[in-house]
């Protein structure tokens, strides 16, 4: 029996997205979808007709309640993700979102060549999110911040809890609620465009890379070519301090 390993890649199962990252991701996606739908309804409510007395109806009330519940989930989930950027694995580390090294920027260019210019790059792209994706998520996190600031800023005047009240300075920066609301509304479009492109690109990478991109947010696994996996250079867009993860030498090693 002759096995020709030269043509067939041997794949490594790599645990990329830990369970908390996956929980974060889907909670985030659901919250954002709920916020977009309810946000749209707040911005331009449906023309409902009813013979019921207003006292017996609470349609818009519920839309707002859902918006605010989803907003709280979204906010705390976001805080959790920032925390996880410090304690999670190297793929989830905060450094992998910010272009701070030549290596990171070079990989962004590589991804641009492969994804947009459709050139056949020989370079490998990272196992976790690639440099371009990481950078886009970084921008997305800023949009998260803007949306939380403006959202809680609008909420502050009706809130009784100290947490949203802490945001009452936000409308003052914009000179009032009118502009704050508009900024909140415009930012929503960033989320819509992001979600559409993001989902498309997940499909695309799954298709052209064959690494199991789509299911990686389900089970956490990606399937990486053995030779790529062996070179740590290809693991993350920015270098990760590997020493921290190497098993410590013990006295028994020395003897």
């Amino acid at each position, binding site marked *: 029996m002759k096995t020709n390993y030269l043509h067939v890649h041997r794949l490594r199962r790599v645990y990329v997205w830990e369970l908390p990252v996956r929980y974060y991701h889907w909670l985030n996606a659901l919250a954002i979808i709920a916020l977009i739908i309810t946000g749209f309804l707040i911005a331009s409510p449906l023309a409902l007709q009813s013979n019921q007395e207003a006292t017996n109806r609470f349609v818009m009330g519920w839309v707002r309640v859902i918006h605010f519940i989803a907003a709280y989930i979204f906010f705390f989930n976001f805080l959790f993700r920032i925390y996880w950027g410090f304690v999670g694995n190297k793929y989830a580390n905060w450094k992998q979102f910010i272009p701070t090294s030549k290596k990171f920027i070079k990989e962004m260019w590589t991804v641009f060549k492969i994804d947009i210019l459709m050139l056949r790059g020989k370079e490998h792209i990272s196992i976790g999110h690639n440099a371009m994706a990481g950078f886009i998520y970084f921008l997305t996190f800023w949009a998260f911040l803007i949306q939380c600031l403006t959202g809680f800023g609008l909420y502050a005047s009706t809130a009784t809890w100290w947490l949203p009240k802490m945001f009452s300075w936000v409308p003052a920066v914009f000179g009032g609620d009118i502009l704050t609301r508009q900024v909140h509304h415009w930012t929503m479009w960033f989320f819509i465009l992001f979600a559409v*492109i993001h989902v498309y690109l997940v499909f695309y990478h799954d298709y052209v890379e064959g690494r199991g991109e789509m299911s990686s947010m389900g089970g956490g696994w990606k399937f990486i070519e053995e030779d790529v996996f062996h070179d740590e250079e290809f693991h993350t867009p920015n270098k990760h301090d590997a020493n921290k993860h190497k098993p410590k030498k013990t006295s028994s090693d020395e003897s």
Partner: protein
Amino acid sequence: MSNELVPTKQPTYYEEVERKGYSRRDFLQFVSMMTAFIGLENSAIGQVAKALETKPRVPVIWLHFQECTCCSESFIRSSHPIVADILLDKISLDYTETLMAASGFQAEEAMQNTMKKYKGEYILCVEGSVPMGADGVYCMIGGKTSLQILEEAAEGAKAIIAWGSCASNGCVQAAKPNPTGATPIHKLVKGKPVIKVPGCPPIGEVMAGVIVHLVTFDRIPELDGLGRPKAFYSKRVHDTCYRRPFYDAGLYVESFDDANARKGYCLYKVGCKGPSTYNACGVMKWNNGTSFPIQSGHGCIGCSEENYWDNGRLYDRASSFAGFGIEANADTFGKVALGVTGAALAGHAVMTNIKKKKLIRNLEDEGKQSEHELKS
């Protein structure tokens, strides 16, 4: 230097009330109304009454710059006659172009005297914005520009009240392109507390409340992040609006002549700005508590908010998007962007299958080959 226009000893407010022929009962009625308006407990009524009985009236200089005088109008029509008679009428006001008897040099002299005599004690009320364009020539009084007059008067003022939207945030004359360079007061005076009382005009009782607070406690009322007294500007019109149950129920006026309008539904969809406007209209109402815009079937236009004249349209929820024409708003723009994105992604998918054909074929072949090896 003698001048009859400025009496040497200032009478107390109560003395003036009596002189004007009001009864003690009228006075107390006024006091309890004001106490409630400025957001104090009932127990503070005594304190307010005492302050007005014992404290000499505070000298006031009231300047008029680029404005329409609606603030003064609102103030003298405030529901309790004592407001107009005592706080504003000849007595408290040492200088105000609209209402004072004096004119010309005599008037200017009265102002100069007050400024000298009560340095550090008088309240400076400013109605109107200051035009900064063309060296200030758009509004000059007695040969001085508004800015010069303001700076001179602000110098010795104890506190400054910016009446109305003009003085607080520029109002309509500051609308794009702001030809006169209309500028609100807080941007021009430094180192003095400025109390903003926005509104076009502000509610008369609110104006009176601010003055009563200053007199009673001898300090400025608690202000919010934008410099407005919290007692009157901490709630949105939307949160005190009697049509709010219709908003929450999802029942809206779709156009001003529909059945919903007759039923008194919420005016949100015909452009009501109540949800982004901080004012006391829903609680105090206007003209002796008779009514307020929403009660008469017209949405709030957000007259007490900064930039309400440029930030959006009066009868529409969505605001126009600068640079994209009158009809375009953020959603039109967003929908176009979404369409373009969709088309780009579809194009990208097609290109992927063409340009990366070999790559994808290889991946497929790899899979087939694996199975092949299994058989062999």
